[in-house]
């Protein structure tokens, strides 16, 4: 068995900014330096990886590409601390290291035949992106796809081109929002939980998936209940500080569950039982 602490080197194929500012978000499209790693690598939407640079450290990020996208992995990373600042210095052709895939995944097999609504906020769209891409690449297996997404400003919107393309091609119904009014913004102004009530997806044969800042998730969960969604129809991801990523080092637990190993994907039904889940 492979040593789970040893990462693989990846080469940056392409990189671009999703959002500007002090806490800018940069997307990295990478492939393994050793092409043979692809023969054994397999991940599913929702799974994560430890991403880092020897000498700096490593931190956990969701893999923001779907396994249906072949030949590369994507990570969309917000600049927040030491490791992410060092990663942000890197450009196409540079390398870093990836350890994974880690954690569980969205149960997309179980969702076959159902409608899916994703509700994202800010960088929280990163773990939802592979779900959306997976459904687009297996379109006949799923019902309607609705996307609800917001960020503070239009500049903070991640994956803009992809949303535009989606709206044009009709694979999904998209609803966008920003927190405060901007000139020429054609979509909703307000917070994501409010937009969700406006869109009012039907809970009938539908799965709701939400990722975003904790405060947004809190109100999205409340509003989904108002719309008639039961806790087992609702999924989210959690995050916590992590070191090992394999359920040993102890710190990422919420109650008896390790976010790194038992998560990051949890149903609301699971989390309702755990008071620490939304700490």
């Amino acid at each position, binding site marked *: *068995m492979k*040593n*789970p*602490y*040893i*990462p693989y*080197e990846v080469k940056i194929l392409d990189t671009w900014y999703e959002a500007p500012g002090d806490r800018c978000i940069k997307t990295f499209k990478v492939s393994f*330096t050793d092409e043979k790693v692809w023969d054994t690598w397999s991940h599913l939407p929702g799974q994560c990886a430890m991403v880092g640079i*020897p*000498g*700096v*450290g*490593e*931190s956990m990020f969701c893999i923001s590409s779907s396994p249906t996208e072949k030949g590369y992995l994507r990570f969309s990373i917000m600049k*927040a*601390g030491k490791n*992410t600042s060092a990663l942000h210095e890197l450009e196409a052709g540079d*390398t870093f290291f990836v350890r994974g895939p880690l954690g569980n995944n969205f149960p997309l097999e179980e969702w076959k035949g159902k409608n899916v609504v994703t509700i994202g906020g800010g960088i929280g769209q990163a773990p939802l992106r592979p779900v959306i891409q997976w459904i687009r690449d297996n379109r006949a297996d799923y019902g309607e796809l609705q996307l609800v997404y917001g960020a503070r400003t239009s500049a903070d919107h991640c994956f803009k081109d992809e949303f535009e393309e989606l709206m044009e091609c009709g694979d999904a119904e998209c609803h966008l929002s920003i927190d405060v009014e901007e000139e020429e913004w054609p979509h909703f102004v307000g917070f994501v939980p409010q937009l969700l009530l406006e869109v009012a997806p039907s809970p009938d044969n539908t799965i709701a998936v939400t990722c975003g800042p*904790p405060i947004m998730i809190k109100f999205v969960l409340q509003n989904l209940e108002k719309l008639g969604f039961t806790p087992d129809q609702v999924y989210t991801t959690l*995050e*916590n*500080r992590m*070191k*090992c990523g*394999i*359920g*040993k*080092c*102890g*710190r990422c*637990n*919420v*109650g*008896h569950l390790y976010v790194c*190993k038992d998560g990051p994907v949890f149903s609301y039904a699971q989390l309702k039982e755990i*008071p*620490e889940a939304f*700490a």
Partner: protein
Amino acid sequence: MAVKKLSKEKVGDALSELSKFRLIAPAKSDEVVVFKQISDPAEAFLDYGNSTVPPKKFAFPQTETLFRFMRGSSELTEKNVEEEGTTVIFGLRPCDARAMAIVDKLFAWDYEDPYYLKRRELTTLVGMACVEPPSVNCFCTSLGGSPFGSEGLDVLLTDMGDYYLVQALTDKGKKLEETLSSQLGEAPADDEKKAEGMAKEAEGKIRRSINTEGIPEKLPTLWDSELWKKVSAACLGCGICTFLCPTCHCFDIQDETEETGEGRRCRMWDSCMFREYTLHASGHNPRPTRKERTRNRVNHKYSYYPNRFEVIACVGCGRCINLCPVNIDILDILNQVVDA
């Protein structure tokens, strides 16, 4: 096959024989007893209560290298634990051996931890039964252990006066007996029976106890209880309760780099009692005060661990009680849990 004995006069010879391996034994270090690698049998101090620091670091070092790297290079060199060689831990207490058996479950769970498991595979544990409980705060019998407990051990030694009764418990233990064939003699036929009696007597001398039944299930129901604030009020957040705990296994991972660019990724003991342990890069901390950290520590040992591994992650060694600078007492906390 007859049970063996090791006469006290031959302990030195036996330790010399075992020093062809990496031999770890209790030894005095300033005012305290610690487990350390010894080369001279005279360093071993077998007439001890229990060590201040448990011997867990010989399976799970306080700091260890996971791999080496050169900044900017693609190559990572994995640490080879095999190089550390075959290890014998001689004279550890049954509670500390049982603690290793408990921690084994975590490191073998799902992803196998190659460093820890290789080291365990290379290590033989020779225990020393507690004829007298080492501390007034011993409570091993409340947690399924015993002063004469054999769980986790390969060999159990019992002090019979001028010799030790030697009971090999596993294949590794039998192998060790063979290694010591010229130092061991044949024990009197009724010694095993005698030891059973001594065990009962030692168990009767354990002064503190807790009925753990129902605690793992009850703890989560006390999440919002006032008791957490009360029991953590005196806590300094020093982390000694976790560092000296034989079952605490939480760790941090850090990189160290020299000016030359050579570096290593290592892991080191960490403590859930520290603020930084759960601090997010965003500044958010899901366990912002000692109240949440104490609650997590107690829940982890007495609820989360048994929930996953069907055993409480505490062996009742009493170190966290004996060595807490502000006298926080885990049994006092558990009694409050029971009464709540």
